[in-house]
């Protein structure tokens, strides 16, 4: 009984960390620009392919490849904001359709370039650790640790830098923030780039654990979406809380019943939360 419980908790928490990385970027982008970024999963996919190309094919050091891939995806995100999303500021539904269009185009491009084959990236670490009767794969643990480092870096950035302060201000009230001299022209690409970079880290870190293929982004995108509703769209602490809640709930239902039921339960929670408290567990009403 105890072993089963620890297994559920450990599995739950390791998936939580990746969900949180995805969800934070997603919620940041929504909080600042009011865009539902349906292309978030494709940013994850691009980072995975970059790691596959750099570490797998060119033989770079894995950790360097992760860093380069995440930064490149971040820059790409900022570019997307500048060129494609800027005309739709304040028009939520059109921004969402634009994100869908980008998602479709990126998926098809990846398919044309790489085909449907599932590629694998060599694992930098292998083996397992044993705690009592519980077995934890080392590579999963390493991903968890690196995710924690990235999350800590993000926290420090949002909490202690001027740009972070400006972003938090825009999430609370765009108009008042602009009175205090926060310029959307700078904050929007920065937020989009940062959100994309977090998705890039998630994709780059997961590349050796799962296989790399053009449609790999849809699953993490779905998780990010659920996490963000749980925590409240636009709420950064909510994304962390939502990630933990989803990771644990899924782990319980997937271990005890099966993954389809686990997904179904998470969607039921989403519907209930949207109906009862659309702003999520931690979100504030914006209107």
């Amino acid at each position, binding site marked *: 009984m105890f072993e089963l419980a620890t297994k559920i908790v450990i599995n739950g928490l390791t998936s939580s960390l990746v969900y949180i990385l995805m969800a934070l970027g997603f919620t940041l982008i929504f909080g600042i620009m*009011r865009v*539902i970024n349906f292309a978030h999963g494709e940013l994850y996919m691009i980072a995975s392919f970059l790691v596959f190309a750099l570490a797998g094919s060119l033989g770079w050091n894995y950790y360097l490849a992760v860093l380069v891939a995440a930064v490149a995806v971040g820059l790409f995100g900022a570019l997307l904001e500048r060129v*494609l999303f800027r*005309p*739709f500021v304040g028009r*939520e*539904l*059109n921004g*969402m*359709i*634009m994100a*869908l*269009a*980008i*998602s*479709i*185009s*990126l*998926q*098809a*491009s990846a*398919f*044309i370039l790489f085909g449907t084959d599932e590629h694998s990236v060599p694992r930098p670490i292998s083996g397992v650790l044993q705690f009592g009767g519980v077995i934890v794969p080392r590579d999963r643990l390493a991903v968890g640790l690196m995710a924690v480092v990235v999350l800590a870096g993000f926290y420090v950035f949002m909490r202690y830098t001027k740009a972070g302060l400006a972003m938090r201000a825009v999430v609370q009230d765009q108009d008042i923030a602009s009175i205090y001299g926060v310029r959307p022209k700078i904050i929007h690409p920065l937020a989009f780039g940062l959100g994309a970079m977090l998705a890039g880290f998630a994709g780059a870190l997961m590349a050796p654990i799962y296989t790399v293929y053009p449609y790999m982004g849809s699953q993490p995108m779905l998780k990010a*979406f*659920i996490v963000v*509703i749980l925590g409240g*769209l636009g709420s950064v602490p909510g994304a962390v809380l939502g990630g933990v809640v989803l990771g644990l709930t899924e782990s319980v239902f997937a271990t005890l019943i099966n993954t*389809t*039921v686990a*997904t*179904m339960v998470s*969607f*039921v929670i*989403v*519907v209930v939360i*949207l*109906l009862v408290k*659309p702003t999520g567990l931690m979100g504030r009403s914006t209107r």
Partner: protein
Amino acid sequence: MKYSLKLLALVAALAVLPFLLRSPFLTHIGVMTGLYTALALSMNLMLRIGQISFAHGAFMGLGAYGSALLVMRLGLPFPVAFFGAALGVTLLAWLVGLVFLRIRGVYFVLLTFAFGEIIVLTFVEWVSLFGGSSGLAGVPRPVLFGQQIQGRNGFYLLALALAVFAYSSVRAIYRSELGAVITSLDENEALTQSLGIDSRRYRLATFCFSAFLVGMSGAVYGHYLTLVTPEDYGFWVPVHLVVINVIGGMAHPVGSVLGALLLVPLPELLRDAKQYQVLLYGILLIVFLLFMPDGLYGMFKRFRRAREAVK
């Protein structure tokens, strides 16, 4: 009078087309275009009230599974199963609409998306009724007026009838007082309510009629393919419907028709280069969003106005 004569002539011309062309492939494209015209029009209604329903894929699936199961399990005649399934979907839309329609904007999109996923996962999980991931195979061809619809031409006529019904009803709604009210809901709901209009009833009626159209299209789709699988009714159905409306133009039901005429044949014609077609599709959407937000309909309208200005 002049309008209805024109429409009648057009429909008559379209109806005899496959019998003249005698190309099964082109007729197949005709069936798909007809069905997607009706589906796109149902989404046009939702766009009109500013609430994009991502549950429409699941509603289409319920129509398909519903009609197929009523024929296969209960042995009901096709017309009864067809309307039964469509009305069942409408009833479900009414029930969930009572609570769902209070939610607006992107939250409504996300809510209906999650609800649709629950329905599709139910198709997967409830194997004894819905057949799981492999779905229902061997859905019988419908029998109408004592005659079994075997060939594609029969389905073409059915799909055409559905598209014409959807177009004329949506156009009639927009031209009526009802249309004026639902258009005002997206623009200024508070003002509409101040006139003593119970806006939620209008939203609910729109949602229900939209679901009715989707349910009917789904039912025909299932009998046409003779195979109903959960993956056909997921997230991409509503996305496709929104794209058709954006590219065709949302301001008028003609836009939905134009969008379907352009976008439905595309994947069928470029079958060998499927991914290039998807890429083209995505890029087309980006270009229209950025440079032609009024879609094809807006383009034609501007072109006509410019020509009249020259005269």
